[in-house]
C-alpha cells in the first residue's frame, strides 16, 4: 500500500495531464471535421454545414450525439469480442501517440528519448484496429477493405521510416523536443524539401485519406472496414481516424516545420507562446490535407502500390544515402564539427 500512496500524487498529475491533452484533442477533432467539410464545400462552390448553430459549427457535435443514441448493431455471424475491441484499439492507439508530442518548449507529457520511434511504433499498430474490424465483421467488403488498408499502411510505413531517418541524421537524437530545437537555424523542409513532399504524401496514405482512401472506397467497397459498424463503435473509428490525421499533421510540423518555433526569431513573433505557433502550423498542414481531399481523384490500387514501392522507396533510400554522405563529407553531422 505504501507504494501506491507514494505514487498516488504522481498518478493524479499524470491523469490531469492526460485530460489536458485529451480535451483539446477532442475539440481539435470536432473543428477538423467541420473544417474538412467546409473546405471541401468551398472548393466545390457549396455552402457546407451551415444550419446547426452559428456558421454550422454545432453540426459535428449534433452528428456525434445522433450516433451515440443510435443502436449498436452486432452482425449475427461476427466475432463479437474482436468486433467491439477493434474500434477501441483504433481510438486508444491514436490518442496514446499524443503523449510524446511537444507542443511548446518543455511542455510534453512524456519526454522520452525514443519519442519518434514511439510514435512510429504506435502508428504501425494502428493497422490492427482496421484488420480486426475487417476480419471480425465476417463480411466480404469489410474484409477486402481491411486487406487493402493493411497492405497500404505497411507499404507507406517503409518510406515514412526512411524519411524519418534522414531527419534524424540531421538531428542526432530521437527525442522530439531535440528534433524541434535542431531546427532553430533552418526548418528542415528547406534542405530536405523532397523528403517533405514524400512524407506528406505518405502521411496521406498512412491515414487512409483521399486520394488514397481505397480501404473505404465507396464505389467499390461500400464503406470498407467500417461497413458493418453503427452507432458508438463507428464514432470511435471516425474519431480515431481524425486523431491520427491530426497526429500526422503534428508529425509533419515537428519534423519539417520547426514545431513550436516562430518563423523568425524576432521580437513580436517570439513573444507569441510556442503552442500557438504549433497549433497554427498543424492547422496549415491540415488545410493542405483537406485541399488534397477536395481536388485530387482517387488512385487506382495498383497505382498506389507502384507509388509506394517503386517511387517513394527508392527515392527515400537515395535520400538517406545522399544526406548521410553530405553530412559526412562536409562535416555537418551532429557531433562531428
Amino acid at each position, binding site marked *: 500500500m505504501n*507504494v501506491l500512496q507514494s*505514487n498516488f500524487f504522481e498518478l493524479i498529475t499524470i491523469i490531469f495531464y492526460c485530460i489536458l491533452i485529451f480535451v483539446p484533442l477532442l475539440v481539435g477533432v470536432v473543428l477538423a471535421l467541420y473544417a474538412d467539410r467546409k473546405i471541401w464545400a468551398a472548393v466545390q462552390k457549396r455552402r457546407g454545414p451551415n444550419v446547426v448553430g452559428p456558421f454550422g459549427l454545432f453540426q459535428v457535435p449534433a452528428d456525434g450525439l445522433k450516433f451515440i443514441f443510435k443502436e449498436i448493431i452486432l452482425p449475427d455471424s461476427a*466475432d463479437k469480442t*474482436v468486433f467491439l475491441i477493434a474500434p477501441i484499439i483504433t481510438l486508444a492507439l491514436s490518442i496514446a501517440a499524443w503523449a510524446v508530442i511537444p507542443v511548446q518548449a518543455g511542455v510534453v507529457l512524456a519526454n*522520452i*528519448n*525514443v519519442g519518434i*520511434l*514511439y510514435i*512510429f*511504433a504506435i502508428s*504501425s*499498430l494502428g*493497422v*490492427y484496429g482496421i*484488420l*480486426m474490424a475487417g*476480419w471480425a465483421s465476417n463480411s466480404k467488403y469489410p*474484409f477486402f477493405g481491411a*486487406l487493402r488498408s*493493411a497492405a497500404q499502411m*505497411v507499404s507507406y*510505413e517503409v518510406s515514412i521510416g526512411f524519411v524519418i531517418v534522414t531527419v534524424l541524421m540531421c538531428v542526432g*537524437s*530521437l527525442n522530439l523536443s531535440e528534433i524541434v530545437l535542431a531546427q532553430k537555424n533552418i526548418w528542415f523542409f528547406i534542405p530536405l524539401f523532397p523528403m517533405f513532399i514524400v512524407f506528406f504524401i505518405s502521411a496521406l496514405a498512412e491515414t487512409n485519406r483521399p486520394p488514397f482512401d481505397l480501404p473505404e472506397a465507396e464505389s467499390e467497397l461500400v464503406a470498407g472496414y467500417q461497413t458493418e459498424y453503427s452507432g458508438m463503435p463507428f464514432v470511435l473509428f471516425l474519431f480515431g481516424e481524425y486523431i491520427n490525421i491530426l497526429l500526422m499533421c503534428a508529425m509533419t510540423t515537428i519534423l519539417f516545420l520547426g514545431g513550436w518555433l516562430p518563423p523568425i526569431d524576432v521580437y513580436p513573433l517570439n513573444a507569441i507562446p510556442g503552442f500557438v505557433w504549433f497549433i497554427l502550423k498543424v492547422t496549415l498542414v491540415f488545410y493542405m490535407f483537406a485541399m488534397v481531399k477536395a481536388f485530387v481523384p482517387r488512385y487506382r490500387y*495498383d*497505382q498506389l502500390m*507502384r507509388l509506394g514501392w517503386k517511387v517513394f522507396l527508392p527515392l527515400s533510400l537515395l535520400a538517406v544515402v545522399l544526406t548521410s554522405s553530405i553530412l559526412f563529407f562536409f562535416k555537418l553531422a551532429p557531433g562531428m564539427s
Partner: protein
Amino acid sequence: MSMSLITFYLFSAILLLSSLMVISTKNPVHSVLFLILAFLNAAGIFVILHAEFLAMILIIVYVGAVAVLFLFVVMMLDFKTSLEKDNILQYMPIGLLIGLVFIAELVIVLINTRLDLSNIQILSNPLDNFSDQSNTEAIGSILYTNYVLYFQLSGVILLVAMVGSIVLTLRDREGVKRQIVSEQVDRKGKIELVDVKSGEGIDI
C-alpha cells in the same frame, strides 16, 4: 515492493497468460492476436529494463510488420475444418521434443558460462562509458563498430531470403497488359493543344 516491480509482475503475468492462450485457443486468428499481446508485454518488460530502443524496435519490427503479415495469412485461411478436430495431443511429441531441445540448450549455456562477478559486468555492460550515453547511442556505437560484420551478414541473409521468395513466386504470364507510366507521361507527339473558338467547334 517498488512500482517497477509491480509493473514487471503485471507485464509478465499478461505475457505468460497470453502466450498460453496462443497455443490453447481454437481460433487461429485469436492465437495471432494473443501473440501480438505477448509481444507488446515483452516490449513493456524491455522498457522496465531501461532498454527503450529495443522495446520500440520490437514493436515496430515484430508487431508492426511481421505479425501483420502473419495475421494476413492466417485471416485468409479457411480454418473451419481445423476448428473441428481438437486433438491437441496429436502434436504433443513434437512439442515435447522442441521443448526438451530448448531446455538442453539453456542448461548447456548455463553450465559453460562462468557466473563470476566480473563476467556479469562484461555481459551486461559491454561499453565502458555506458552510463553517460543514451540507449540508442550505446547500441549504435557497438553494433556498427565491433559487430559490423555480423550486422551486414544478417542483412545479406535477409536479402537472400527476399530474393529467394521473389524468384519462387514471380512468373511471367503472357498477354498481360501493363501500365508504363513513363510512356504515358511522355507522349507529347500524340496529344495536341487546340484553341477552340467559341460557337464554332473544330474538326478532328
